[in-house]
């Protein structure tokens, strides 16, 4: 799923490990999200939105819109 995760993470100066720690997932999971090798669950998408303080739609493109 296309997303702005890498850009947002860079804006915060976080490594993939930093973001993974904040989300409660592995660095590999963050990498998979950024490279579109994993579509997040609704729960993880909301956790990501909460970490960046933005709505989910600002971070992930809705593939069905």
């Amino acid at each position, binding site marked *: 799923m296309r997303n702005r995760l890498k850009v947002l993470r860079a804006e915060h100066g976080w490594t993939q490990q930093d973001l993974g720690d904040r989300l409660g997932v*592995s660095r*590999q*999971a963050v990498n998979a999200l950024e490279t579109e090798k994993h*579509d997040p669950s609704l729960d993880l998408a909301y956790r990501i939105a909460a970490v960046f303080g933005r709505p989910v739609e600002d971070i992930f493109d809705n593939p069905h819109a």
Partner: protein
Amino acid sequence: MELASAKGTNAHKKYLLRTMAFMGGYVAINAAAITGAFDDIGRTAGLALGLVVAAPVAGQIWATLALMGESDEFMRALLAKRFIVASGLAMAIACAWGFMESYGDAPHVPAWMIYPLFWALFGIVSPFIRTSR
């Protein structure tokens, strides 16, 4: 919230310890069998031995499921995909070999070989399965 790195490390440490324990038991029984330790144990003990050697196999599957339960959603999906593909290939090879034995005079291979075959296939397919889709 538990840190992912610590969570992952703990889950993998537990998995490694469990794997060493179960695989150690499995290898010890097989090593004893290879050296002929069970050649004259009799029918009843031989049947019981089959159940004993199955215990670490079942334990290892439990350890893998426990690792999946303690991993994040991406790692869980990867493990599940790799497990399914390796299982499917192992079953396909076992079925093919069984028919080759029955109808093609292929040499006999013991059924327990499916277990090391499965893990060998798991190792082979893992580098190629890198997405959760």
